[in-house]
């Protein structure tokens, strides 16, 4: 299919300008669905995963829908999208969808087309997988590609971790699902705080204040109020603010409110690793991830220490969890004190909480393991 020409796009733009409409809302999903989904909407009975990357949904009507799942780096060019569209045009009557973890799903009603599609995808360098008990695609943020407050890159770290864990994306041999997520600072645009393994960029030094710029660009009461630990005080002499360093916990909230406060510090920014969270209500209740490794320095382009740490955690869980046990369920069974032992991770004062929920995590019993 040929792309719209510049002249056609000019015309579309002019039409839009003349209409000058707002608030039309998103495109109607009903116009996007393949016929087999329209026919079986709300009638699906069960599904099977015959192999990695392939889902088969069976309807009460007897219809079967075949879904081929393709990995994506999330940051994709229009060339990537067009190539995926070529596959969808050739095999899926022009229909596809994306998942909440960035994968592309090609939807087929014709069983005979499934294997040729998978073969052609692989031949052209696309990765098929991400189903069942696998390492799922890593949810992540913008990082150095596009964000002002990033303490690490996002896409690069995801790339090297997925390279290392690739065999677990394209197979289903893990005890359960392994959902990894990455956020490049505490704002957690991707909300990574409930992941089996969370990779989190952190700042470790109190921000510096550009007093001249604060005076001109920031509202002082808002800056002072933005600090959760009351570390920011007015500095009337400079018509600016002063930061009490020993109170700062490097959340970066003041920086979000006031661009004249700088929190980026290349020598001290880096990555922390958190484990044992989940969002699903299956078996155990949803849970937060807990701190496992407080700090690993940024080491681009391939962050070998981060890759090694994540790989070790995945392998340890794989070798020790029961079938069906997520990371956090396994750790809950053996206990955190045992986890630090078997993971051979040093336990430090950084691991002991000192914020909102701190006291709920202190051990108020004589029961513990050695």
């Amino acid at each position, binding site marked *: 299919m040929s792309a719209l020409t510049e002249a056609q796009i000019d015309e579309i733009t002019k039409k839009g300008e003349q209409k000058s409409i*707002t608030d039309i*809302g998103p495109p109607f999903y009903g116009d996007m669905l393949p016929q087999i989904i329209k026919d079986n909407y709300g009638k699906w009975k069960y599904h099977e995963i015959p192999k990695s990357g392939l889902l088969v949904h069976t309807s009460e009507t007897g219809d079967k829908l075949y879904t081929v799942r393709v990995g*994506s780096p999330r940051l994709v060019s229009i060339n990537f999208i067009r190539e995926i569209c070529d596959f969808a045009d050739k095999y899926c009557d022009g229909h596809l969808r994306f998942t909440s973890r960035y994968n592309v799903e090609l939807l087929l009603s014709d069983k005979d087309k499934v294997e040729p599609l998978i073969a052609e995808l692989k031949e052209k360098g696309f990765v098929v997988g991400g189903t069942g008990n696998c390492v799922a695609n890593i*949810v992540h943020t913008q990082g150095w590609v596009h964000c002002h407050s990033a303490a690490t890159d996002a896409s690069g770290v995801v790339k090297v971790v997925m*390279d290392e864990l690739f065999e677990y994306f394209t197979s289903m041999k893990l005890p359960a699902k392994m959902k990894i997520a990455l956020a490049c600072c505490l704002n957690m645009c991707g909300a990574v705080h409930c992941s089996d393994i969370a990779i989190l960029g952190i700042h470790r030094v109190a921000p510096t204040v550009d007093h001249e710029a604060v005076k001109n660009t920031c509202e002082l009461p808002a800056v002072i109020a933005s600090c959760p630990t009351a570390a920011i005080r007015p500095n009337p002499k400079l018509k600016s603010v002063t930061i009490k360093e020993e109170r700062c916990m490097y959340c970066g909230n003041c920086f979000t409110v006031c661009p004249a406060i700088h929190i980026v510090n290349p020598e001290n920014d880096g990555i922390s690793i958190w484990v044992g969270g989940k969002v699903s209500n299956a078996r155990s209740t949803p849970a937060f991830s807990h701190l496992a490794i407080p700090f690993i320095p940024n080491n681009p382009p391939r962050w070998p220490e981060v890759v090694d740490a994540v790989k070790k955690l995945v392998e340890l869980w794989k070798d020790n969890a029961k079938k069906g046990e997520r990371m956090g369920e396994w750790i809950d069974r053996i206990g955190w004190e045992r986890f630090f032992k078997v993971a051979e991770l040093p336990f430090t004062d950084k691991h002991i909480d000192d914020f909102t929920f701190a006291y709920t995590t202190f051990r108020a019993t004589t029961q513990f393991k050695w």
Partner: protein
Amino acid sequence: MSESKTPLLDDLEKGQWPSFVTEIKKMAETKPMAQDLLSLLELSYKDKRGYWKHGGLVGIMGYGGGVIGRYTEKPEEFPGVREFHTMRLNQPSGWFYTTKALRTVCDIWEVKGSGLTNMHGATGDIILLGTTTDQLQPLFNAYSNEGFDLGGSGSNLRTPSCCCGMARCEYACIDTMDLCHNLTNHYQDELHRPMWPYKSKIKISGCPNDCVGAIARSDFAILGTWRDDLRIDQAAVREYVEKGLDIQEIVIDRCPTSALNWDGNELQFKSEECVRCMHCINTMSKAIRTGVDKGATILVGGKAPILQSAFLGWVIVPFMKMEKENDYQEFKDFVEKAWEWWDEEAKVRERIGETICRLGMRNFLRAVELEPIPQMIFKPRTNPYVFWWPEDLN
């Protein structure tokens, strides 16, 4: 061949996982903007820091959000990314597309932007990464003519999102895609014109497996559920067992409330013990299905750590029918009461969960006119610092 100017990033084209660097390079062939993005990123990799300024004010006529201004700190060295703004396009429910719609998105973006995207952003939008200020309004004009609208940004209702629901999942207890589309259209003003203390998010999952992570990522999580018995096909259960499923270890022993028993021939189910965790259904989807009296549990307060720590959403409405016929009025009435209270009471940059913590759940429940019930909590209070209402006293 000349020496590569991006040796660090080139290293990220190795390995089996698809490379975002390759994606940027594809666009760099024709777009100076993408080339400069690559060069700037290489510098970031060398210096171990980002080079983006804080967001600046840019906008579309009639909108208060949907585009995020982005400028590099180094415009002289990298003029292509002097202005590199983001535009958020509201995705169709469930992220289903025709290739025609997607190709239109691409064609317009090729002419008026960097050609780089995120499919998709954390709220669910199509993220168009990188364009200049002068292209923003024309981009919007072109997209709106083709049926696309902006997503949310700033202190507003963020773009609601949902799982694929009934379109492709047997677990779906509510029509997530219709509900998401309905709410998004109903609250266009709240979505497009920020006027609240901070952001507010709605996410919708069709069942307690919560594939969009609504409980952790949204102020208002709508999770499909049911309140009658599981539907069990005993013949299909036996088939799983005959095919080698260790039903005792994998299903019965893992049931968190011991609601299931297997006597070697029949799966017995104690309905009143079931907490609808989905485990047995997930394991034996051919044999066990959700009930038929379906609706949703509404959980309020979920958010990431900024500021008072991360919260998971709390059960506020244990069961609400999600009725298309009534235009989901019961939910709309509820969420509007909650928003009104929060808008009135919250401090600047305070999410509703934090406001509830600060002012007490009892005040929130009064505002949304709900009676407290034990399903809302894990345990009752242990401290004696009880607040009384005037009418409680003589």
